[in-house]
């Protein structure tokens, strides 16, 4: 049988969305669990917990990572950005988010935060991707509704519109 033996909770400091955030968690907790259950940052979605769908994509030091495959302790000392921290704090949308809305790069929206985070990481590394590079950049993010054509369009338009701004 499974029995939780320890070592019990430990304090951690995370650099999360530009703020130092204290949490007290089991060392085996994933970043996804800590974000969603401890910090109530539920924009990062849980759809498979096995690194198969990309719904939990966040940024560590500006690069896309699956939060379900990352232990929270691994994220210590790195800049963590979630969908909640992508846009400026004035409540407006990041240009990519605005493009997703305008071009309907979403249907049910459950994969959308992950898609937006993957796209933001792509545009940081490659501000002017080709259509093939957009597809490759989003290949780790499943959309069951099949919103892909308009997701690609949204990312392409955001890239054309110029430098993405944001907190990172």
């Amino acid at each position, binding site marked *: *049988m*499974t*029995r*939780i033996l320890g070592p019990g909770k430990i304090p951690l400091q995370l650099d999360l969305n530009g703020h130092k955030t204290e949490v007290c968690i089991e060392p085996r907790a994933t970043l996804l669990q800590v974000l*969603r259950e401890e910090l*109530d*940052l*539920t*924009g*990062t*979605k*849980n*759809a*498979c*917990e*096995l690194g*198969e*769908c990309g*719904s939990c994509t966040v940024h560590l030091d500006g690069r896309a990572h699956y939060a379900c495959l990352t232990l929270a302790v691994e994220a210590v000392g790195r800049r963590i950005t*979630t*969908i*909640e921290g*992508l*846009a400026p704090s004035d409540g407006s*949308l990041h240009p990519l*988010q*605005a493009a*997703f*809305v*305008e071009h*309907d790069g*979403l*249907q*049910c*929206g*459950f*994969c*959308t*935060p992950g898609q*937006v985070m993957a796209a933001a990481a792509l545009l940081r590394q490659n501000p002017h991707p080709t259509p093939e590079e957009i*597809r*490759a950049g*989003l*290949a780790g*993010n*499943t*959309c*069951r*509704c*099949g*919103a*892909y*054509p*308009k*997701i*690609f369009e949204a990312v392409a338009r955001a890239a054309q519109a110029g430098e993405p701004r944001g907190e990172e």
Partner: protein
Amino acid sequence: MRRKTKVVLGFPGHFKEVAVLLDAGEPIPWAHDAELKVVGKRVPRVEGPEKVSGRARYTFDLKLPGMLHAAVLRCPHPHARIKAIDVSKARSHPEVRAVLALEEMEHKFAGAEVAAVAATSLEAAREALDLIEVQYEVLPFVTDPAQARLPGAPLVRAEGNVDISVTKKRGNLKEAFRSSGAVVEVVVRTPVALHACLEGHGSLAQWDGDRLIAWDSTQAVFDVRNSLASALKVPEEKVRIIKDHAGGGFGSKLQMWPHTPIVARLAKLAGAPVRLLLSRREDFLCTGNRQSSVQTVKLAAKKDGTFTALSWETYGTGGVEGVAQTSGPIDDMYRFPSLEVHEEDVFTNAGPGCPMRAPGHVQGMVALEAAIDAVSETLGLDPLEVRLKNDKSAIRREELKLGAARFGWHRRRPSGCDPGPLKRGLGVAGTTWDGSGLPGTEAEVTIGPGDRVEVSCGTQDIGTGTRTILAQVVAEELSLPVQEVTVRLGDSYFPYSVLSGGSLTAACVTPAARTAAGRVRELLLRLAAPKLGAGPEELELSEREIVVRGTGKRLSWSSALQSAPEGSLSAQAERPANYAGFEAGAAGCQFAEVEVDTETGQVRVVRVVAVHDSGRILNPLLWESQVNGGIIQGISFALLEQRVMDHRFGKVLTTNLETYKVLGALEVPEIEIIPFLVAAGFNNTQVVGIGEPAIIPTAASVANAVANALGFRIDDLPITPDKIVMALESRAQEQA
């Protein structure tokens, strides 16, 4: 008092005036060429900003103070009887607050619910499951539908494993098969498929005395309310179901699943809110599937391609429950003077089937369109011409011609003549689905106090855009920008709505909302009339003002509302039965171009051209998204998706998204969507649903394109590389 009016129905070149009888208070339907300001425009999804910013809360995101976490013990055997169950050790776990041993003692599939626990953490709940001691008597089982049909197979249901769900017979098949120019037989197999909504199934329940609130990831708040009340033996009015945002459904959330009453019972026992979110594995085992099929289709045609007879014999399984009905579309599309249908649903020891986006139609269309291509090949005729000759729908015939021109159907070469190794092939298939709506859905529109403009309806938005089209229709009636209308849905305390399935939603909710908004407008005009010294019929709305037509006289809404009770006006409306329509439901067709790599067996869909009608297109932007989604899921079904069952052990092997493959970003083809204008009739917004029509032809057109590329058919879906390579190999050996 019903009144008579005339509406123009049809499609370009074929419009005609039709007299319809409207119920009292039912507005005149918007004409197909009516100049509308908001409806018909590319309005972005109203909840888009919430969703892209991560603020939208889905059922999986909800928490309540003091909430407990539940986990379910599931039967590990495909068929077993519980001899003894002891939950005492689980109950004494320090973090456990409630334990429930379910009453059912016989379990008929691996994954069925045996017991459940609520604890202060999910880890503790899962730990406690291991403390439950169950002695099972393992019973004989059968998971392969071919085996389950045989005499002496282990019984899944006492009344037998086979249910004859459809039989139909007309004409003289024997004679037609004997005397026709060509008779072909195809045997098409389709797998059990899974909905795989990214937000799986989950519920959160909280009691307040004898009242229950359950937040449930559902497509049907009222159906879940009724089922839950019945399961718990409490009055329906004591149960409230809430669903704000849902992460997909595709049919898997149309009914209450066992976890919902389990959560409610645990919450009652524990005296605290309880949440249960199924894991991907549980979701794949227990919450529905698209039934498999083995379809033996015999089609006869005259030398000129005119169909004379069709015989349709199928069976398939969804597991312990589920009805496939693959013959659903066959009589709605082409003329078959002689027809015989015999459909069997086979019950097996696997998780239950349920509707999945265009149930039966997706499977059936693969077989029907395969047979049409096969008979066309045999007669040496163009499969498109054969369809045009036999299709009953004037709309679809036009769509086929339009699509063929745009797609470049003339490029299609005789099957198998591409030398390869990358062989190109073209295929076509049609669609039919009746999403013209049902009576009964209600909506309420309220204006005031203050700036409030609200429409509420107990429908759901599962990603289809229901919120947005409701806001558009109300904005149109009240002459407002769409952003000023707040939509409230997903709550069984709101006015009744049918479930969000069957492509019914748009055609059910928007007519009710339009009527309710029109009634509110009338109330507002009547309120304003004396203040403006004019009759209500002289007034019109303009940007939150009431204007006397042809004069400069105007009054603000807020001034008019001052004399309303509590400063607000509100009206409800119920959607009446359908009136006359042009052709039943929606038609449409899709053309697919594929490239088959004969060395690796890989199929790539290069391009799809889709022509669809669905009455009035309320919002082209969202409509295109629905069509894209149908096509992408259809390709996924054709090439990738299959729930793999190990029949020796009765266990599902594909319990995650790694092993259950769905189409991804790299495999999406170029898609061109052509809307086809049809003034459909049926209801006052003249909309017909598009969700299901869009998926129905895709797999069929892809399978036909693969056959055109290869020169022989792979009629066993999904068309995976191994099947192509083995088929090429065995043909090479035969030739040698």
